[in-house]
Structure formats: C-alpha cells, structure tokens
C-alpha cells in the first residue's frame, strides 16, 4: 500500500463542554475516495475544519506524506495541497471565474498573472475534463457550474487532497452523475478525496472506503461500501436500529389549500409560472425540485409574503383577498420557514417572545396594545412541556437552542393554533436522526387528524417517505405530479431537470 497523502492521528477538539472530536484517526491514500459519514453534530465538519486550518486541534497530529505538518490556517492547508469544497460555495458572484481563481495567489511582477492562470485552467480542462469560461461572471453560472468552479479552485491551487462537504445537496440527480464522474477522474490521477455526506446511496456508489463518526468518535469503518447495505451503514451512524416511520393510506378530504394559475415575478430564483396545485385535508403533498426553481416563490406566496402577479390563492375553500402574513394565518394556515433562525425565530429574544411572535398583536398575548407577559410565558411553558423542548425555561435566549429544539419550538407555535393547512420548507435540514424522526411523526399525526400539509424539500428520500403525492417544480412550473407509490428517485430526477410528464 502506498504512503497515505494524509494521515490524521488521534485528533481531539473541545468547544467548551462539548467534545466535538475525541481521538479520531483517519488516512487517505492516493487514488482513494474516502467517505466520511455521521449524523449532524457527529463531528465531521469539525474534523475537516481542523484539516483545513479553520480550527486548531487540542490534541493529535496531522501527517502529510508521512511527515508531521502544522496547519494553523487555510493558507497552510493550501500549501500542503489540501483543497476544500464547502457546502455553501465560497465564491464572489460579482467577480469573474478567473478572479475567483486568482484570489490568494501571488502575482507576477506585482500584477495578477491572468495569462498564466488561463493557461493553467486549460491544463485542468485537459487533465480532468472540467471546463469553464474564465471571463464569465460567477453570478451568471448555474449551480452545477459554480460547484465545478469550486473544484477547479482546489485543483488550481495544486491540491492533492480534495475535501467535499455534502456536495450533492444542491444538485439534481443527473448533475450528481456528472460530479461523480469528475471525482473518479480526479482520483484516477492519484489524488485523494474525502467525501462528506449523509446520503448513503451516494456514498455506496462513489466511495472506495468509508469511516463513520458518532458523537465525535470513530464509530467504525466500512471497507467496501458498495457491498454494505444502506441500513447497516445507517445503524452504524446512529448507533441503534432504525425503524422507518409508517405511513398509513391517505384519507384525503376536501381541498384546504388551492393555487389557481398563480404567476409571480422572479423571487430568489425562478418566479412561478401559471402554477395550479391543491392540497387536501389529510394528505401530504411533497414539492420536489432543484433549489432555485421557484420553491421560495411558492412558499412566500402561500405564506403571504409575496403577492402574485396573477392567479388565485384559496385557503380552506375561501379566496384570500389580501395576501399578507396576517391574512393567511387568520384563515388557518400554519407556516414553518426554511431558515429557522433567520426567518422564524429571533435569536436575541427570549424563547417565549419568539414563540408568541406571529400572534403578538392578538389576545391572549396582548390586549389594547399592551403585552401580557404572564400569558406569553404561560403559553411558552405549556409548549416547552408538550413538545419536550430542551431549554432552561421560557426566558432563555432563543439563539442558545439546538436546531432540533428550534424546530420543535416552531412546530409548537404553529400547531398550538390547529392550522387547517401547514406549509413547511426543508423541515429536517440540519437535524439529527432523532429530531428528524420526531418531525416526521408529528407530520403524520397531523395528517391523520385531517390537516393538509405541503412539504417543500430538496431531500427526495424525505419526500418519498412522507408524501402522498409529489409535485416537481422546474423553472417555476409544475412539470409533473406523481403519486408517491409510482415515484422513484430516477423518475423524479428526470422531472427535476425539466422533462415533462402528464399529471397523475
């Protein structure tokens, strides 16, 4: 076996009371694609941030080509041939491709070496088949191209080890195939790759070996991921048996949410084009699509934040005359936003105030414009108890809660008012398996009680688990509506890339 490109030995890292990495060791050989698996909070990101110099480990050592290396910042990491592709792209949209590549490089005679960089870009295209126009503004690149730029950036800095953090989260299935082909080509040239993911099928398809982290420790290694079952790996990740939630047959009632020919202007991605959809009582409608294809516009129209240019919105059979957050809420709509701390709760206020926020102007939270602190605290206490929100009490600063507890708080604040229809975006993003399970159970019990749900998610597995029907958004249009028993990842993947189908 050849000398590993990189070896991490007995790495430990502590944040206050939390031991994020405890005596973790791993190595990557040339040509190897190592899968790094683990639930959220298992310590994957911390470990990789130590390798890339963002954090400095409290204990342990890093060897590069068998020699001990000190990595104190990203410049050290780059100098040692370590490149990282972050989940959230680290690009400047207003600069060109070549400018993004040249950041942090020394110039030639004090000037930017643009000619040299373009030549190098050609070499990368030749060696790895990765192509981009150097003078394009990054803002005009598609998501897949931006990711390609991130990979090229690492290769441009002569990386020999590439770390990819959840790279497929933003891609449609066909683009994932393209990414995998590129990564295999890179590995074939003798570079090492660390592939972080929680999508087990992808890990099984791509990696040559994988290691699993749990609670900051190495939980095990899977020497041949392709030969292992997804269930085996998943149980290694969470440390116990997994019982998938059961979804009894749907019993749909009358429509509780109706969109009729709704069109909007562009809104954080594509606007809606003539969208017609119905959610019935007692059913879960999933919305699939690559991010940026109109999901935000759909969620914001229904949440009352975006006024459509044309079309009608009906809640519980009644037309919403004045589309505003107050109005849709008053008509029986519950909303759980995608970004829990940015749009939902207020991190610098007490949990009680965060929970009362959408209804603060109404009794019992306020009377004659005066806040009723007693009622606000009482309500929060009830919800904390009912949903098992782990916190010090209603007065705790909202920002100190974990992701799972924040999601519970959001669920509590909407469900306490018995919505007729609930719209949720990315309901389990960033949650661990336990919290995800809690959310699924809650959704299914809501469905059983006759509430209609619309679940917008980029996670196809999640949609297949929860939904009765799945609609696919592509460039703001509904390009397909399938019953979930007829849906497969590959069929949805085609639709997500724009293939059209007749409605089911």
């Amino acid at each position, binding site marked *: 076996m050849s000398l590993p490109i990189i070896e991490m030995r007995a790495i430990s890292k502590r944040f206050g009371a939390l031991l994020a990495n405890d005596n973790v060791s791993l190595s990557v050989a040339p040509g190897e694609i190592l899968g790094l698996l683990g639930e959220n909070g298992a310590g994957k990101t911390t470990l990789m941030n130590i390798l890339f110099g963002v954090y400095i480990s409290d204990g342990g050592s890093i060897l590069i080509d068998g020699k001990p290396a000190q990595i104190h910042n990203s410049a050290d990491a780059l100098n040692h041939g370590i490149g990282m592709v972050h989940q959230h792209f680290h690009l400047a949209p207003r600069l060109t491709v070549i400018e993004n590549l040249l950041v942090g490089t020394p110039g030639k005679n004090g000037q930017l070496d643009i000619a040299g960089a373009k030549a190098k870009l050609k070499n990368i295209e030749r060696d790895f088949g990765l192509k981009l126009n150097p003078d394009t503004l990054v803002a005009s690149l598609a998501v897949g191209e931006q990711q390609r730029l991130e990979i090229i950036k690492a290769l441009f800095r002569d990386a020999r080890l590439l770390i990819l953090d959840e790279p497929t989260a933003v891609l449609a299935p066909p683009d994932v195939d393209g990414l995998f082909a590129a990564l295999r080509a890179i590995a074939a040239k003798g570079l090492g790759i660390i592939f972080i993911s929680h999508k087990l099928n992808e890990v099984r398809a791509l990696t040559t070996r994988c290691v699993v982290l749990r609670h900051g420790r190495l939980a095990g290694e899977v020497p041949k991921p392709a030969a292992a079952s997804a269930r085996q790996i998943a149980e290694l990740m969470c440390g116990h048996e997994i019982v998938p939630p059961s979804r009894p047959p749907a019993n749909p009632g009358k429509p509780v949410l109706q969109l009729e020919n709704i069109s909007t202007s562009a809104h954080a991605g594509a606007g809606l084009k003539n969208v017609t959809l119905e959610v019935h009582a007692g059913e879960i409608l999933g919305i699939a699509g690559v991010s940026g294809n109109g999901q935000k516009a759909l969620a914001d129209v229904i949440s009352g934040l975006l006024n459509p240019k044309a079309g009608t919105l009906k809640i519980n059979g009644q037309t919403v005359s004045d589309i505003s957050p107050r109005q849709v809420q008053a008509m029986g709509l519950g*909303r759980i936003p995608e970004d829990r701390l940015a749009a939902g709760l207020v991190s610098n206020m007490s949990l009680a105030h965060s929970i009362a926020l959408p209804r603060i102007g109404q009794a019992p939270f306020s009377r004659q414009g*005066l806040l009723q602190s007693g009622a606000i605290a009482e309500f929060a206490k009830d919800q904390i108890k009912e949903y098992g929100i782990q916190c010090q009490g209603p007065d705790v600063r909202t920002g100190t809660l974990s992701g799972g507890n924040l999601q519970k708080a959001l669920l509590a604040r909407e469900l306490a008012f018995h919505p007729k229809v609930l719209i949720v975006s990315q309901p389990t993003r960033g949650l661990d398996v336990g919290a995800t399970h809690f959310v699924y159970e809650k959704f299914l019990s809501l469905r059983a009680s006759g509430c209609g749900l619309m679940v917008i998610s980029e996670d196809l597995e999640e949609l297949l688990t929860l939904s009765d029907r799945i609609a696919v958004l592509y460039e703001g249009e509904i390009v397909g509506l399938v019953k979930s028993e007829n849906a497969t990842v590959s069929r949805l993947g085609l639709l997500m890339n724009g293939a059209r189908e007749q409605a089911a």
Partner: protein
Amino acid sequence: MIRLEARSSTPTWFNLALPVAAVFVTLVLCSGLIVLAGASVFSSYAIMATAAFGDLYSATETLVRAAPMIFTGLAVAVAFRAKFWNIGAEGQLLAGAVASCMVGGIAMPGALGMSAMAIAGAIAGGVAALVPALLRVKLKVDDVVSSLLLNSVIFFALMALIEGPWKDSLSGYPISPPIQDSAIFPVFIAGTRLHLGVLAALLMAPLIWFVISRTVLGFSIRVTGENPEAARYSGINIDRVLVLTALLSGGLAGLAGVCQVGGVHYQVMAEISPGYGYSGIVIAMLARLNPLGVVPAAIFLGAVMTGADAMSRATGVPAFLSEVIQGTALLSMLAALLFMNYRLRFQGRAA
C-alpha cells in the same frame, strides 16, 4: 493566546458593571490629557465633581444640562432599537426648537402655550426624522448619511431664518424673537433653573421604557431591529414600524429643542445646542439602549459638561475635554459590550 469565546448567558450585574467600567476607563484615559495640559488629575476631576454636584445649585444645573440629553438619548435609543440609524437627533432638536419658539411667540394662556410648544416641537422633530426614514424605506438610501447630512441642512435653514425674516428686530445678533413670558417653563426651586422640562424629561424615560418593553409597538420595534426577516414573516409591516420609530425618535429629539427654548434660552440662536444630538448617541450606548439607563447616562454627561467648564476656568485645561470624554466613553462602552456576549479565554497554542 487570548481568544474570545461566546457566552451562553450574561450575568445580570454586567448590565450595571459595564457602563461603570467604561466610564472609569474613560476617565483614566482622559487623565492623560489633563497631565498634558499641566494640571493635576485628581484636583481637576475633583473640581469637575464639585462643580457638577457640590451644592444644590450645581446639581440643578447638571440636571438642566442633562434634560435635553435625556430626550436625545431616548430618541437615539428608540431608533437604534429598530436599527434605524438616526444620527440626526441634532437637526431634529433644532427643528423642534424653531417650531416651539414660533408657537411660543403666539399669545396664549400659559398651560396651553406650553402644551402647544411641546406638540409643535415634537411634530417638527418627527417630520425631520421622517425624511431619512422615508428615503430608506422608499429608496433604500443609507439612513446614517442622510440623517447626518440633514443636520447641516436644518442648521443652515435655522441660520437663514434668524439672520433673515425671523431675526429679532430689537437685537443686533442673529437671534429669534423670544417666546411669550407666559410660555416660559415654570421653575421649581427659586434661584435655580430647574424647570418643567427637566421634570418632563425625567418622566419621559420610564414612559418610553414602558412603550418599548411592554407594548406591541415596542415589541415590533425590537423585532424589526433584531431580525427584520422574522418580523416580516410574522406579519409585522417593517416599513411602517420604521416610519413610526422615526416619528417617535424625531419627536423625542424635537422635545429636547422644546426643553431648551421653554426652559433655558426662551428664543432660538445658533448655539442653542452644543451638540446635544450627538451626545444622545453616547448616552444611548452607555445606557445599552435601555430608556431607564438613559437618565443616569445623561446626568453623567451633564456633569461632565458642567464640570469641564468649571475646571477650565480653574486650571486652564481646555473645556473641550468634555468632548473628548464623550468620544472616549462611546468607544469604551462599545468595547465593553464585547464582554456581554463573549468572555476572554487565555489558552496556550495547541501542540
């Protein structure tokens, strides 16, 4: 290596300790200037303290100085709560002073005249603050710069008035006609200048505290400042909240002008405010944007100003020391705020 580490909770006593520490650090830093001026630090500060609080008259003078700054401090605190960066309290104060002086010049029964002055001053200040607020809401113009520039515009407008059509014909100086004698604010203690405006300022602080912490409007102001996205999502019209905040903030700053016209100068001149609007920013920050904290912070600055004048006469140290103290106090307090959310951790580098 020293590292900042986020705190999960802040001890309550920090609320009081931080401003006190900031003031202490400020006085220590500024003592260097006193030494530079060749005076004794302790006796200089002692002269300042005596001049500010040494006897009843001095104490009332400090309060009279503090009163307009309580209003401007509240104005800034309210605005900053909503992250409406109103740096225009100075101009709003001037607008309030002009409007109240014009109204105060009309013959009316005393109580009516004083009320009319207050209302006119508050409206004028509010309208002045509305300009940067509307520019931000409608045209996305940065409120810091527009409110700052507006200070100069309002100042020139005031000068044009008192050098032109509104000049007191009986005076050789650029100065407005005085208000009616009946509109002059009553004084509580004979022989002092402790006027009605001081009482109004002291009562306004708890009132504004109540509005901010106990009403739906105050809640909306806080949410809009903390997280506009969540506010919008929850159905709060953040543009409307910003406009209301501007009216409230500008109205308070306008009342500072009323306070100066009705209680101190009885007319308008170029020097009606020695930068009380800017001092409001220092005060609001020292108070950590808490309306109740504005009162002690304003009294502190009032004492510094009164004291600096006396110290200058006694020791020759320029009275501008009070301006330096204000700037230093703002910076010290800003640094101190870091300790609200972070603690220092001393640690060795990892091996």
